[in-house]
């Protein structure tokens, strides 16, 4: 394993500079992300909101190096992602970033436990240590006893929690979560958010959520609203109350 990323403590967790992502060309071109420049400091807890199709998923994919920007730069821990080789990017994701994908995307041939420990295993964490961490977290988020089930035998909400467990286990420096609570009832999403808040507070893990969920936004300390691919509002939030601008007019 490589040593952990070489960014200095002073660099922000994520920095985008005039970031563009365009799908297609000419008349049919879709500018999914337009001129986005944001800086997210280490230890921030950020909600990315905006209507469907506003570019949230595209933006976190760009940050995680899963897609190349059309223009502009992304820095994670002060390191330019665009300049990295494929191998370096994979290593960056492995060492520094936890992902929760919009459709939880568990690996069907692995059990819940194996799915959750997958990144830890790739990182070379010893088996006993992994298992202990997974069990503790599973217990905490209501997955106790489901360790040996395959994803196909889990409910949507359960799969989602396994996916979140996979992203946060081992406390990566940055967690990118695309709608992590979309399928969960209040109780289950509160349990998950609790876990994430603890990680954020105690281990300084930076969180970026894409979300439509007011419960998530309520816990966030900063909300960035995207509309048509560009940043419409970006504001720190003090009270538990949500500002009215976070809500999409047509959606819940």
């Amino acid at each position, binding site marked *: 394993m490589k040593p952990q990323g070489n960014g200095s403590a002073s660099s922000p967790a994520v920095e985008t500079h005039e970031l563009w992502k365009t799908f297609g060309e000419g008349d049919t071109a879709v500018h999914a992300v337009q001129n986005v420049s944001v800086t997210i400091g280490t230890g921030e807890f950020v909600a990315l909101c905006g209507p469907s199709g506003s570019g949230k998923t595209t933006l976190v*994919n760009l940050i*995680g190096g*899963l*897609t190349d920007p059309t223009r502009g730069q992304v820095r994670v821990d002060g390191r330019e992602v665009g300049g990295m080789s*494929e*191998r370096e990017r*994979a*290593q*960056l*994701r*492995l*060492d520094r*970033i936890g*992902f929760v*994908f*919009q*459709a939880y*995307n*568990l*690996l*069907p*041939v*692995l059990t819940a436990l194996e799915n959750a420990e*997958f*990144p830890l*295993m*790739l*990182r*070379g964490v010893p*088996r006993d240590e992994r298992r202990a961490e997974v069990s503790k977290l599973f217990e905490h988020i209501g997955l106790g006893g489901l360790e040996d089930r395959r994803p196909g035998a889990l409910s949507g909400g359960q799969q989602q929690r396994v996916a979140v467990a*996979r992203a946060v286990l081992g406390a990566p420096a940055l967690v990118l979560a695309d709608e992590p609570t979309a399928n969960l009832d209040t109780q289950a999403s509160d349990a998950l958010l609790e876990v994430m808040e603890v990680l954020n507070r105690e281990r300084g893990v930076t969180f970026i959520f894409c979300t439509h969920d007011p419960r998530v936004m309520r816990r966030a300390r900063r909300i960035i609203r995207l509309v048509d691919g560009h940043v419409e509002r970006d504001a720190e939030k003090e009270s538990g109350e949500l500002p009215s601008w976070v809500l999409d007019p047509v959606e819940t």
Partner: protein
Amino acid sequence: MIERLMLIVRMALRNLRRQLRRSLLTASAMVLGIGLLMFIRALEGGAHLMYVETATRMGTGHIAMEHPDYMGSQDLADRIAAADLERAFRAVEETARPEELLAVFPQVNVGGLAQSASSSIPVRIGGVDPELERDVSFLADRVVEGRYLQPGDRLEGIVGVGVAERLRLELGSRLVLMAAGAGGDLESQLVLVTGIFRTGVPEVDRGVVQLPISTAREWLGLGDDATSMSVILASDDRTGSIADAVRERLRDEGVDADRIAVRPWWEAMPDLHAGLRADAVQTYVMLVILLGIVALAVVNSVLMAVLNRTREFGVMRALGLNRASVGAMVMVEGVILTFASGLLGMLLGLVISMGLFRDGVDISWLFGGDLAFAGAIVDPVITPAVLTVDVVAILSIVMTIGILASLYPAWHATRIEPAEAMKTDA
């Protein structure tokens, strides 16, 4: 690292199980193909062993020792002197283990003319030692009338059925053999027909006469010399190394290759060897072609498996698995599939060859009357022989094909872009 490898293997196995039906279909095609090919090769191997066995017993032995020029000159001046025969005999006895050695015997082999009251024909004349050759002579078992030579015989001789026919000979008939003697003059010898043999090989049946070596030596003025010395071994496995050792030992005693050439059968009978080789090569070409077709099935199966799991590969890549590992996963899947099928196929081949057809397969219908192959005789019942070299060769071919067939799907998997893949349905 080890754990990552184990995970890759584990996932590959589970994926194969997940697509059990497709895996089984692909596998069964391979199992059948490889099993049958192996059986065919075993039959061929069995036939070859038989050719070699009969050829060595009829011809030169597993190891043939001759004056290097005799094969070409057929001149008795190019013979092995009695003292060298003695040395050669000792060299063999000291080299081969007793249980490996079936027989060592000298022969006098000359071309000549056989003449009866009715006509005369050219023949190969063999002076043999009935005592030494009794148990290993191919002709001894093929005498259809009368008897084989025995110790104490002097004028007795055996002839092929064709010779008997052409010279109108019966048991007890006389014939006269004529050949150039050691002194260069034409010498003749009277022989009484005491046995008639039938081998199925026209050249032998129509052109061979054998008489006691003592008679031949006297007739041709050879003293205790001979034209060749043959070694018959219990198995062909060590022919080459024993021949080398004998050659070495003779050289140590001052008998160089210009006095005695020690040749394993494949050098002494190059035609037979080339024939067997061509035969085996043909089978292997067929095998590679057939397995190549099977490989397409593997490519298809593994590629489908990759295409159906685009999304999963995207996820794994997004989680930080590098391209190499993703490719490795696919390779492992393809190779396991091929290798397991290969092993099962070989097992099937073994069962067919050594179980079902243990007692041999009668292929006389294939040949009609002519049972010769490059001068060797074919017993129409072939006992399949599974040779280690074939097992190794087939396994290597299967492995190679498994690897080649997995390359493209694996390459395809490494090309998957995570963000795109996670949008697809597969």
